[in-house]
């Protein structure tokens, strides 16, 4: 089998899989009756629609060559960004805002091909100072700044 539109094919399979998953999950909830529909009804309708649409998209992608562009992933920017944000979450909880921002900015700098550690560190300090001044100093938001001793 040859797929004519790889991006559409992936999208279709994604929607079918997700649709089925939501139908299965919804089936655990109460259906209710027509005059008092339960929590399962509406998600079930939507999920079935999505799965059917996904099926049509998949079918079309195999048969028609609407969109022949291949899938192209560039792993570095997306992977580094997701890691940087997750790290921010972990560190914010554990060591406070200042450390979290510095780590986020420094790690995020590695999303580009030629990062420079020194300039990333300077930028990190600047962003951290600015954020502390604005968000905590000026707005008084309740965020912990430093690690608790």
């Amino acid at each position, binding site marked *: 089998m040859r797929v004519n539109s790889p*991006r*559409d094919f992936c*999208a279709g399979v*994604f*929607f079918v899989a*997700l649709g089925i998953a*939501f139908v299965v*999950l*919804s089936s655990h*909830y*109460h259906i209710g*009756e*027509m005059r*008092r*529909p339960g*929590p399962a*009804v*509406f*998600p079930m309708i*939507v999920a079935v*629609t*999505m799965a059917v*649409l*996904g099926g*049509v*998209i998949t079918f*079309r992608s195999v048969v028609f060559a609407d*969109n022949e562009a291949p*899938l*192209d*992933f560039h792993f570095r920017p*997306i992977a580094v*960004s*997701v890691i*940087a*944000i*997750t790290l*921010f*979450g972990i560190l*914010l909880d554990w060591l406070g805002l200042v450390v*979290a*921002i510095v780590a*986020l*900015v420094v790690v*995020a*700098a590695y*999303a*580009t*091909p030629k*990062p420079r550690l020194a*300039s*990333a560190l300077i*930028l*990190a300090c600047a*962003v951290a100072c600015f*954020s502390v001044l604005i*968000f905590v100093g000026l*707005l008084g*938001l309740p*965020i912990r700044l430093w690690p608790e001793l």
Partner: protein
Amino acid sequence: METLSNLALGLGIAFTWQNLIYCFVGCFLGTLVGVLPGIGPVATVAMLLPFTFGLGSAPALIMLAGIYYGAQYGGSTTAILVNIPGESSSVVTTLDGYQMARKGRAGPALGIAAIGSFFAGCVATLVVAYFAPPLVEIALKFSPAEYFSLMVFGLIAAVVLARGSLLKATAMVCFGILLGLIGTDINSGVARFSFGQINLTDGLGFVPVAMAFFGITDVVMNLEKNEQQEASTTRIGRILPSLDDIRMSFWSILRGTGLGSMLGVLPGGGALLAAFAAYMVEKKIAKPPRNFGHGDIRGVAAPESANNAGAQTSFIPMLTLGIPSNPTMALMIGALMIQGITPGPQVMNERPELFWGLVASMWVGNLMLLVLNLPLVGLWIRLLTIPYKMLYPAIFAFCCIGVYTVDNKIFDIYLLAGLTLLSYILIKFDCEPAPMTLGFILGPMLEENFRRTLMISLGDPSVFLTRWLSAAFLISAAIMLIAVTLPALRATRDEAMRE
């Protein structure tokens, strides 16, 4: 007459010192993010939500609104001078605006863009002032069936107007609705799709969703393209367009304003669609000699007027029905909810100062933007010399802080990371995020009204078609859907989207 006295009331509120300052801050920040590529009004409004916690509802809304329409002004500056659309809605402006700049007419291009935007802004303010009150009257008579059908109509309109595949856009709407349903069901108290996670029982917050889909992912896509911006050396020259320029673009500005005002009201519409449509129309009906694509001033005047008009009239469904027509409006609703106000038809009667203050502030804001943009254009251009690699880590930091401070939940940060990955993958599958976010926002309201209708009608689903207004919405939605699938129209739509 009543409208005028209401507008006067609004002007009184907009002209208090506090509101003037917040209006200015909003317009200033809007222009800033408009100029800077890679960060749009959605992400900015989301980031600034924490700033509004301590404000009253009127200044909060005035400031956030200023960001949205301010971004439309700022976006055109970079589009014209460096061929980079600072905002997605100014993509069309690059076609003729940049060509004008290359021919040494950057000044008049900027001038006509600002004048067109200002004119459109003034007209759109009046449109909101005159059309919102009668709509509120109608909306107050809506039963759940009408609300449901109206939202279905809105979602279908968004799908039809979205770029790319119709099927995928519809599937994305469904996906968005399902994501929106995560959390505790208000009727039965069952926590749906939460996998026993306490954090999921409250549902997904809109701010992490909006930030992931419109903030972080945009940056990631920019990093992938890895395009180096050339610092601008364009000489701007005289800014005021000549009398000939004005005479030539007069009708284009009028057409752009009219079209933009109409398209802004549609769900999924707003600034972007308005600009595209205005340019297409201009290409078809402008008086010869037509020089589109090679620096025709009308190709700048029309879309710039349209995007500003559209940005402002997209407030109408939000203010009158409580239904957001685009992600920015959804955030505005979020901001109002934080203030303890549930948007809907009752707001205009219960809080006239909020409604009319906002409307009047739009006009004031447009005046400020004229000043901010024309004489200060050189300043904004200098901002473009900041290298992107200095900018994006800072954007990440502010996005993360913004997401965290909405609810002070670390979980929202992890959610942001996860959703970023999801949205990246979906974009790689050529699935546009805009219909999904609309589904996400409307999903819970859609279900609520669906169930209420069935309860009221004692389980008879035919009410959706026997109540004439509800039927009208559903039938129009069906016609729209059938119309775009017809081969002839489909071809035009595809052609229009490709431009």
